């Protein structure tokens, strides 16, 4: 894909984030979409492409009154929206559509109008994982982490620091759910969920949504907000069964998607000013730093524990507070993308001064899928 050929021209989250007991999931989609359309200064009738996950594109298009000529219902978990950005950029470049709306919303806390998730007993997951007591992401996503720690020499204290540092970022974000400072001791003494992870190493459960609008870079200059260009993209999937990952000391989906995006962008790691790594659980930023090639996995724990990713550090990471402290409605990738766009527009509450390149890396399922988008505000 050509660098900087497509740009984000509209971006918004739902009016409220957190606990939203007076709105169903589809209305959260609409609230985010209408906010993004207003942000872009567009009308609903200007949208000719739509992408969403979990909810179907036809549900969202019909509810909003959009008549699309391009749709993408890729639904691979929380990074689906990174894949939508990649697919939309290709579609716009190919001339299949002009203006794409990508929506996410989830009534993850209030559970209003939310489709139930279930694992059929005759699926492979239902036969070869469910009988052994997996029960929701906290019992599955951390399964690889003890092997990762043993292979790479990572300590419990270093992983606890992920949560500590992200809380520092969250404190700078008025919309973050959790802002009170925490220490490594607080993390390691918090309620046990699935050893070795405690509750402060697990994502929040909230309601909310977000939406993006993409168009060609040629048209992007005519919009009210500074365009944020798509510099590089990558995607991959591995397995829906965490037990069947090729290895637990790295994610194949991460190390496929991430380097693809870096190659397409034509940048080096030292060029990155701002980084988002989807943190459903506290080990994910370590996997991301290693698999995206920022450093060997052995150095990731020390890098974070030494403060390199905290406010004022040399590699600002998860500057909204992340899924651990900002919000996590179930499919957090959209909120990571929103924060990258805010940073590239220069309007983030915890703005990284002069940031020009932002890398936004997402995970879907339990390391099942991955998407990486690299943004820039310079064409």
């Amino acid at each position, binding site marked *: 894909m050509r660098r900087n050929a497509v740009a984000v021209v509209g971006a918004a989250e739902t009016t409220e984030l957190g606990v939203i007991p007076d709105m169903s999931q589809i209305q959260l989609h609409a609230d985010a979409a209408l906010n993004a359309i207003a942000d872009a200064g567009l009308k609903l009738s200007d949208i000719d492409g739509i992408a969403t996950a979990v909810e179907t594109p036809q549900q969202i298009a019909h509810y909003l009154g959009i008549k699309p000529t391009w749709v993408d219902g890729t639904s691979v978990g929380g990074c689906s929206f990174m894949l939508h950005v990649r697919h939309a950029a290709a579609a716009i470049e190919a001339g299949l559509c002009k203006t794409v709306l990508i929506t996410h919303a989830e009534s993850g806390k209030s559970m209003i109008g939310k489709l139930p998730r279930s*694992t*059929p*007993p*005759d699926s492979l997951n239902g*036969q070869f*994982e469910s009988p*052994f*007591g997996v029960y929701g992401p906290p019992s599955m996503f951390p399964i690889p982490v003890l*092997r990762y720690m043993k292979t790479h020499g990572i300590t419990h204290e270093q992983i606890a620091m992920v949560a500590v540092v992200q809380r520092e970022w969250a404190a700078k974000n008025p919309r973050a759910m959790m802002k009170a400072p925490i220490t490594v001791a607080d993390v390691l003494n918090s309620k046990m969920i699935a050893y070795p992870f405690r509750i402060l190493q697990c994502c929040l459960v909230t309601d909310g949504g977000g939406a993006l609008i993409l168009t060609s870079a040629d048209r992007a200059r005519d919009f009210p907000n500074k365009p944020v260009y798509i510099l590089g993209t990558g995607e991959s999937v591995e397995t829906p069964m965490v*037990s069947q990952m090729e290895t637990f000391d790295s994610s194949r989906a991460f190390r496929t998607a991430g380097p693809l995006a870096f190659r397409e962008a034509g940048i080096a790691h030292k060029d990155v000013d701002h980084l988002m790594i989807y943190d459903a659980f506290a080990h994910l930023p370590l996997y991301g730093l290693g698999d995206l090639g920022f450093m060997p996995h052995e150095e990731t724990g020390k890098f974070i524990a030494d403060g390199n990713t905290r406010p004022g550090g040399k590699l600002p990471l998860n500057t909204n507070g992340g899924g651990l402290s900002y919000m996590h409605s179930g499919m957090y990738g959209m909120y990571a993308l929103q924060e990258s766009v805010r940073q590239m527009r220069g309007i983030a509450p915890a703005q990284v001064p002069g940031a020009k390149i932002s890398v936004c890396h997402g995970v879907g399922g339990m390391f099942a899928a991955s998407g990486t988008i690299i943004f820039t505000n310079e064409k």
Partner: protein
Amino acid sequence: MAEPARARPKPTPETQHFWDGTAAGELRLQRCDACANVYFPPRPFCPSCASRKVSIFKASGKGTLYSYVINHRPAAPGFTPPYAIAVVELEEGPRMMSNIVDCPQTPEALELDMKLEVAFEKLDDKITLPLFRPAKG
């Protein structure tokens, strides 16, 4: 009222041989006749070379502890927390999810790379689960 039971697998035509095996006290894997790849979960072709010529064989039932969590909350129906959800690396190469029995469910007792052997747990007349316990000797 009966206690809620653990999730019960429902075999498909492609996996029936595995569940017939556990019911007969055998851990069955598949090997590709063309490239000798041993793989899991079951399917009637090799995921490495796409050959449909594959054989079912009885695995040794030996393995090592690759990784795990000790789940505290929320607990799955039929489980009393804390309980370990483990991934076992089989001697033949593939890995599978399981539980570790005859062993305290603690980080001290559950050492990565410890030797394990299969232990079959019958759920009912049709389904027996392959669990693992610390290897003797």
